Structure formats: structure tokens, C-alpha cells
């Protein structure tokens, strides 16, 4: 019995003391080289106190990664209900938020929430905002089977815009859909801040104004390797008078829809 007790006590001591392990190395931050741009769809709302903290992280990525980040701010759900001092309802009520949650099969539990390339990265579809940047970094390293190019012609008098889209397949791709969304930035309106105070001139970026295509995407035939497909006059649409055409941009992306909802390539272009 004494031998057993001594053995157990020794094991316990070993357990408590543990052993020194070789420390892991945290590499320096570098923007990965790759050809894939990343779509970040952020669910937000003017009544969401923590959403400005999410927006700051997205703007940081835009500053660091430039055009390789395509952010879309979706004002959607309970938190997007206008404040008494709001000048307008930033929820477009255009079916875009519903289309995204429907494609994903679920919506976010809490705000701020973002889905990156409409893919379940790591263990979650809507990762913690602290993980956004690291997940984007990993996605930036990837290649893409299809590249997209956008040319927009703007008639500033009639406020009409015509889009020409070109797809270039570096691999064969099927189950291919195209989605285009009109965004507006630098909208000054009311937002609850993390301090709880209401900022009546908060600067909103990348706000969804309207889907230019079907909000769930429009199918295009499978693309073969090396194929270049030009979609001249892909869409023509009009920008409403109340939207500032100089702060509007187009987010365009190609994605799967039936097999997965993953986004393959994205770009944004100012008008």
C-alpha cells in the first residue's frame, strides 16, 4: 500500500510540475501572395453597439490588403432598425441579407458577424471578429479557378450604369453563379457606439444599396479551362437620386450555389 501511495504521489507531482515545452514561433505579419480576392459580408446594424468595432477591423484589412478585400456591409435584422435620429433606413429591404442567410443555411447568432467567402472557415461559418483577419490571411494564399474583370460605363446625366463582365477560367468550373451588388460608402448617419452614445454622423462604408443581379446570384454555364467568356451588357441599372454616385461602387463575385456556397473570386470597383 505504501508503495502504491508513493507511486501515486510521484505521478501527481510530475503532473503538477509538467515539463517545459519548446515555445511556438509567431511569424511576422506579411500580406500573402496569391490571386484570390476575398469577399467579406458583414452583418451589421445601427442599433448594434459592438458593430463599429467590427467595422474598424474590416477597414484595417482594406487599408492593409487593398483591392484584395471586397467588403459588403449588410444592414439586416433587428439591429438594423433605424434609430429615432436616423436620416434613413440603411436596411435596403431588397432581399440581399435574406438571400445570403438562405444560401448559407443559417444567419448569425450575434452581431457583429461576418462570413468570409461564404465558406465555413475553421470550425465556424460566422467566426469571432478576432479571427477575421487570420482567416482572410489564409484565404489570400489560395488560388482561384476563375478570374473576373469588370468594366462599367456610367451615364452621369441619366444615372444609368452598364456593366460588362469577363470571366477567365484557369480551371474548369461548373455550378457557377455571378452576383453583383451596388454599394455606397461615406454615408453619414446615426449609429450607436460601443460607449452606448449615439453618433449622428457616423461614417458608414460599403452599405448594400441594391442587388444588381438576383440577390442569390445568376447562373452562367460551366466554364472550361482557358476559356474567356465576355458578358457584354451584362446588366444595366439606374442609381437612385438620393444615392451619391461618387461614393457608389460595385461588388462583383462568382460563386457556387448548388454544391457549396463558396465564393471563388471577387472584386470591387468604384463608379
Amino acid at each position, binding site marked *: 500500500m505504501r508503495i502504491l501511495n508513493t507511486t501515486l504521489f510521484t505521478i501527481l507531482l510530475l503532473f*503538477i510540475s509538467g515539463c517545459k515545452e519548446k515555445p*511556438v514561433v*509567431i511569424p511576422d505579419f506579411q500580406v500573402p501572395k496569391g490571386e484570390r480576392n476575398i469577399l467579406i459580408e458583414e452583418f451589421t446594424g445601427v442599433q448594434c453597439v459592438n458593430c463599429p468595432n467590427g467595422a*474598424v477591423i474590416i477597414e484595417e484589412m482594406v487599408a492593409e490588403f487593398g483591392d484584395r478585400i471586397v467588403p459588403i456591409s449588410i444592414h439586416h435584422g433587428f439591429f438594423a432598425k433605424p434609430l*429615432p435620429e436616423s436620416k434613413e433606413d440603411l436596411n435596403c429591404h431588397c432581399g440581399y441579407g435574406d438571400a445570403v442567410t438562405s444560401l448559407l443555411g443559417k444567419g448569425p447568432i450575434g452581431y457583429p458577424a461576418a462570413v468570409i467567402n461564404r465558406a465555413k472557415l475553421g470550425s465556424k461559418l460566422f467566426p469571432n471578429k478576432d*479571427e477575421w483577419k487570420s*482567416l482572410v490571411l489564409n484565404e489570400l494564399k489560395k488560388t482561384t479557378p476563375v478570374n473576373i474583370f469588370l468594366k462599367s460605363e456610367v451615364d452621369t446625366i441619366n444615372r444609368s450604369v452598364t456593366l460588362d463582365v469577363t470571366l477567365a477560367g484557369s480551371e474548369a468550373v461548373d455550378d457557377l453563379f455571378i452576383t453583383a451588388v451596388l454599394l455606397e460608402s461615406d454615408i453619414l448617419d446615426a449609429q450607436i457606439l460601443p460607449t*452606448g452614445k449615439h453618433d449622428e454622423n457616423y461614417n458608414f462604408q460599403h452599405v448594400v444599396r441594391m442587388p444588381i443581379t438576383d440577390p442569390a446570384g445568376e447562373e452562367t454555364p460551366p466554364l472550361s479551362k482557358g476559356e474567356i467568356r465576355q458578358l457584354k451588357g451584362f446588366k444595366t441599372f439606374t442609381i437612385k437620386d438620393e444615392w451619391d454616385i461618387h461614393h457608389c461602387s460595385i461588388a462583383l463575385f462568382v460563386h457556387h450555389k448548388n454544391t457549396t456556397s463558396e465564393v471563388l473570386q471577387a472584386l470591387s470597383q468604384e463608379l
Partner: protein
Amino acid sequence: MKLTFSTTGQQIKKIAFLLIFFTFSHWAGYAQLTGGQLSGGLVNNTNFFVRDSSIGANNTPQYDQQLIGGESWLNLTYNTASVEAGIRFDLFQNSNLLDPQSSYSASGIGRWYAKYQYQRLKVSGGYLYDQIGSGIIFRAYEDRTQLIDNALYGVKAEYKIAPDWTFKAFSGKQKRLFDTYKTDIRGVNLEGFLLFDSIGSGLSIAPGIGVVNTTFDNKTMTDLVDVLTSYRPEDRVVPTYNSFATTLYNNLSWGGISWYFEWAHHSNNVLFDPFANRTLVSGAEVPGKIVKRPGDVLYSSLSYSRKGFGISLDLKKTANFEYRTHPLLPANEGFIGFIPPMGRINTYRLTARYSPATQFIGEQAVQIDARYKLDKHWSFNVNASNITNQNNDLLYRELYTEFTYKKRRRYQILGGVQLMEYNFAIYRGKPGYANVKSIVPYTEVLYKFSRSNSLRVEAQYMFTAQDEGQWAYTLWELGFAPHWLFEASIMYNVIGFGSPDNFNEDLKHHYEDKGRVLYPTLGAVYSAGSNRFSLRYVKQVAGVVCSGGICRYEPAFSGVKFNLSSTF
């Protein structure tokens, strides 16, 4: 409807176990002759969702498309003198239990286990529930109200090294729905019991010591490194694969005095502090970052009781004890331990409306509870609690008084007042919001018409000028023992007295948003032996539901709930 098993490999293991189990079951009829016994239970919740956008019961797949959802658990246990084996089948069909705002469908073997005892040795394998001490460094448990099932999927050995001393060791991974988290968990625990007869009054102690080790897998470490790479150098910490948590505890009993004390400590671990600021490249700061700190919990519960009188004093101090299988898991996922809650566990609808969730980063709490029975008719209870964070900012304060008057075999009247202050900004994650201060008078009357027929009436009113304002609640319950119980209740958001023009800004917004809304419930319960069936029409307000200090937001519910609970 989608029915899935988690992985093919696991499926094979489960089928293999099923074969073994049903072989055991086949023996059951024979084994009963030699002392074996088969027992079990079935629980089913079925919800019929009726969309009601006026209370926010909408915009989920259940309200919009699916209309029906629910969950079931069927467990079977086989026992002999030395062997115990159990299996549980879990079924989720469009369930809103995992995430109240989405739909979850899956089915499979939610638990299986086998235990064997040979003399002083007891070995177990499978999905195991257990804890060390009060559970601070390790608690594998199930709470179906929030779909928490933190069973340890692994093995455990217990050995009685002396009649009152047990040593146990375990190793495995924490269960996650029909899968497991990847982090390894292992631990040892030694606990015993000593009775000092010579001192008299039955002085005894029950000391214990426990150690838990966790080891991250490569994927978890890669996730952490990726996140830390994106931090500025001054915010970075270096995570370690291994972490250790230790605990020392003792329960002393002497006469009417009982004193439980526990001190738990974890090593310099990585954890996510939602309140720590991180600096972005732009120079802006955002709250929430991975930090590396040691953590501690001190917990003490001292009580004294004698005939007709009891008093207890609970103290708890927590610092950086966020101990999870993965530091970036959200909400209530992946907790390895369980820190006992300190606020009073209230049961009435309005007194329980604001409950304090356990704070893992910093919490200092004190609670005192006194009960006095004056005579065979009158008894009193007073409970006071105060919870602050590590900076001494108030999180929760409650004074709860209760009297009971009993007239034997005829009626019982219970009543009292609750005074409460609740840090809405911290508990609901809404910085800048004012603390909710409320006064809730309440009463409950139970009248027995006969030995089997009774009426129970509850009435409560919440006075407050914060959050959603004032509430009134009443419940009427008619019982015809032993089979039937009928209930009807209403909860009404009075918001505030008088005209909305006189409301404060928050209440005005709430009034404009929702107006005064009535939430009725109507139901019937039928019991027969160990079977219980209930059918209820429910309109339930959105709120935070807490269980043992673990809380989560529950959106409003509108529809019909059926519940079946059966044991055999």
C-alpha cells in the same frame, strides 16, 4: 429532414457498441434472475412554431418554413452488481435548442458508456460525466435546457486506496454534439474522508486535490498562431500546447456547521479577454484579444443550521479563469470547468428575469442566506448577494425576502419582495446602457380544496424604469392529483404608468417599437406513474435564460409546446 451521423469511423464504432449493448440487453431477461436490471427514459420536446412578428417570433427557419421542430433523448441503462452499461440516442429535428435563431437537425448515438467494478478498482469508458471538487477545474456534465453536453469521451479508472480514500485518473476529449473537440484532457483526483470521533460532535473533513492537463492539437495551435500573427507585436503572446489546472478543496462538518472551501489555479494559459483592448495598425483600439495569464478561483461556502434556523455565507473570487478547450470558442462552448454561480437561483418568472451570468475574467461575489422557522405556521427567508468585477464595479446586487404561512392541509401563502440591480451593459454586452434597478413584490397562494384538488396562484409585478420597463405576471394552476394539472398565465409588458409622453427615452423607444404586449400561456399536464405529458400554448418574451450561472439569449417564442417525459 436531414439525419446525419458525424463520421463513418464513429458510426462503425457506434454500431459495434450497439451490438454489444443489445447483446447485454438480451441477457437482461436472464440477468434479472441474477440481479441485472434494465432501465431507461425517454424525453421528447416538440415545438409547433406560430409566427408572431409583434413579439419578434419570426425570421428563423422554424417560423418561416419548417413550422415544427424538436428534440428527443432515449437512454437505456443496464446494471448488474459489477457492470453498468448505457446508451443514449439523441434526435434533433429542426431544433432551436442549439442555436435559438437557427435550425439544427442531426441524430445518432449521443452517449454510450460501460463501467466495470472489480474489488477496489472501477474502470469506465465511453462518454463519461464526472467532476473534481465543485467542478471548477473539471466538470463533464449535461444541461439540456441549453444543449450543453460536456461529457468526456475517454476512459477513467478509480481505485479505493483506503476505505474512505479514492484516487481517480481520466483521459479523453470533450464531447461536441456528435463529435469531440480536438484538445486532449486528462486529470487525476485524490479525495477522502476523515472522521475525528475523539473531538466529539462528529467533526469530519473531506479533503481533495485534483490536477487537469489540457493539450492543444496542431489545428487549434495553428488557429491561435494565425490569429496572433495578425496582432501587432505588442499585443502578441506565445501560446503553449499544454496547460495545467490544480485545485485543493475540503468540506468540513462539525455539529451544525458545514464549510466547503476550494482554491483552483490554472497555469499561464492563453484565453480570450473580451474587455482587453487590442491596437490595430491604424492605431484604433478594439476590445477583445487573446491574452496569456494565470487564473484563480477562491470559493467558500460556510453554513450553520439548527432546528428551525439556518444561515449560509458564500464567497467567491474569480480572476482570469476562462478555461476552455479552445480559447476562441464562442458563448458557452468548450468550458472544461464550471464555476458555481453566486446569485440566488430564483424560480418566479419576474424575480428570475435578470440573472447574473458567471464572469470568468473577474468576479468578486458574496451571498448570505438566512432561514428561520418561527412556528408550525410561519417561516422566513432573507437572501442578499453582491457581485462586482475585478475593478469593484457593481455587476449584480439583490435583496430577496420571503415569508411563508402554512395552514396545514388547507392553504399556504408565500410572499415577499425582491430588490435588484443588474449591470445590463456587462451581462447583455451593451456598453453604455444603464443598470436595471427593479423592485418585484410577489406572492403565491396554494389552496387545497381536498386531498387531491388544489389551486395555486402566483402574482408578481416588476417596477423598473430601465430596459423594457415594467411587467405584470400572474399564473393560475389547477391540480387534480394524481393525473391532471391545468395552467393559465399572462405576462404583460406594462412598460410604464400613464402616457408614453412621460416615459424616459429608453422606455419611449421600447413603447414605440413594440407597444404594450400581452404574453399568454395555456396548458395542461397529464401524469401517470412515471410518465408525464404536457401540452402548452405559449407566447414567451425574449430574454436571457440562465442555468447554473451559464446564460444565453433566448428569442421570443410563439406556438405550442409538447413535452413527454417517461422513465421505466
